[in-house]
């Protein structure tokens, strides 16, 4: 019974095992690309896409429900909002702390790291926000487009 199910849904032991092995590394690499964007090619968008691809890979090899076990729809919604809020929020925070909008050095009044270090750190913060938003939206786009909006089954 179980074998027939696995066969008809087109799932393959090799693909499943390979994906299971690859996903943690893909996620690690995605995080590396986001975090190491200051020193090497990379950044929020590129890393976010890799992180999203890890979840899409899960959905492709297993099914949509499996990928939703690792990232429930609610968490996805929170991540996408969080990502956008981090970016806009950091900008607004800079303005509230007496600087101009998105002037990260103004956050020096919050935690004194030095204005130039704050610029570097502010870029890091917003890249993380971009990464979150891009990751969750990529997964969301895949879920919706492959299932026609029901987000329960599909490719």
């Amino acid at each position, binding site marked *: 019974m179980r074998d027939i199910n696995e066969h008809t849904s087109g799932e393959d032991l090799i693909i499943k095992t390979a994906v299971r092995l690859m996903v943690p590394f893909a996620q690690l690499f995605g995080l590396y690309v986001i975090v190491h964007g200051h020193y090497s090619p990379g950044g929020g968008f590129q890393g976010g896409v890799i992180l999203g691809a890890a979840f899409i890979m899960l959905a492709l090899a297993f099914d949509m429900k499996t990928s939703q076990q690792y990232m429930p729809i609610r968490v996805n919604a929170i991540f996408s909002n969080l990502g956008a*809020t981090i970016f806009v929020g950091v900008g607004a925070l800079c303005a509230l702390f007496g600087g*101009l909008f998105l002037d990260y050095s103004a956050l020096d009044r919050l935690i004194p790291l030095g204005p130039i270090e704050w610029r570097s750190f502010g870029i890091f913060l917003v890249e993380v926000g971009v990464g979150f938003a891009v990751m969750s939206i990529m997964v969301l786009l895949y879920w919706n487009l492959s299932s026609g909006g029901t987000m329960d089954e599909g490719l």
Partner: protein
Amino acid sequence: MSTTNLHLFVMVVPLLSALAINLFGRSNRFLIAPLVLGSLTFSVFGSILVTGRVLRDGPISYTVGNWQPPFGIELVVDPLSAMMMVLIAVVALLASFSSLQSVAKELPGREAFFFTLYMILIAGLFGLVLTGDAFNLYVLLEITSITTYGLVAMGPGRAARASFNYIIMGSIGACFYLLGVGYIYILTGTLNMADIARILPTLNAPGATATSIAFVLIGLWIKMAFFPLHGWLPTAYGYAPTGAGTMVAPLMTKVTVYLMIRVILSVYTPALVFANGWLANGVLWAAAIAIVSGSSLALGQKDLRHMLTFIIVAEVGYMVGGVFLANANGLTGAVLHIVNDALMTLCLFLVVAAIVYRQGSVSLSSMQGIFRRMPWTMAAFVLGALAMIGVPPTCGFFSKWYLILGGIDGGHWEFVIALVISSLINVVLFFRVIEIGYFGALEDGGHHGPVQYQEAPGWMLNPLMLTAVLLVVVGLSTGPLVNNLIRLIVPAGF
């Protein structure tokens, strides 16, 4: 909160509230209305304060991230953009009352998504009028477009196809704009508008400059549905959900006209754009054809909303023509018409929303005897119709007056004649609707009884009444508006 950042908060508060609506409104939809209305009220007061400051102290130049303008992105608030900020805030606030009602009825369960897109669209429009950077303008143009695609596609039935048409046309427009900016970037090496305006006249590159002017203008014309490129607008605005139409129809095309004025005045400078007489002549002929054909196509419609969408096409012709008259009266008329047309379109679309809310359709056949069912709504409709026709003292008269004066100054009689013809066609159009509504036999009442009084709910009716009053108030205060604000916009050479 210091006032340095106030104009940015006018844009950021709706943006943050959009995120909050998405986060909290999905589970608790009673939070949506306070967030929408609260943030828009903030924007109204903020933009009025900013306008006061601009009129007192002169244009504000603001550098995001505290970088010197050519390197960072510059925001410019001059009298024109301050006026547009107030206009967007007021129209969005008035429209949102009605949208909240009709969305709750038409799209139950999807209010949170709708208002997320709605508020981001408003934030994007604020961003468009604030920005002083050519590439930033492209990004914001795409934000407003993507949210509009989504809002239009939420409608029932044919809305999806209308939205796809809009996506294809809108993308062509955006790509053309981006190409035009690319050509300028290769020539000048900068993206800041003031910087481009400074460098471009010193270059000897007529071919590439002309190409970039052509592509930027064609891109914007597609986005504003200027006559030969207007195919997407009537279906997109006609099939969109009613709640989206009330806000998108008054604002999108007008803000794009503003962008065209901004690009002509502060990127390419009028001297360069109007150097060749044939460009202005060709555009004026196209505008004249747009006005006449938009009005005549409206005559063939059997549905009030579709009729209004064709009138929007005609009105775009008024404004583009006014700008390309290239004289002070023409530009004054065009800028004044942006304000007036936004308010008139808002008024008429709010009427449509109210009628759709009560009876589900605005086809002319279903509007028989509507005056007896919704007298106040229809009173506002009559006022809006008079303004569209251009009867004093409503505001529509004054902007048309300036446009006609400008046409006579420039000797462009085709434009003047088109304006007069379109006013006459508007008389026919609107009196046909009023006749059906006033004298039309009531639908066979049957078990409902002869006359049923079904006025729109107060949340829709009161903003509508306020808009109708604004039409007259703005009309009567044309003099101060032109002398204190719009005269500042007209450049010296005009």
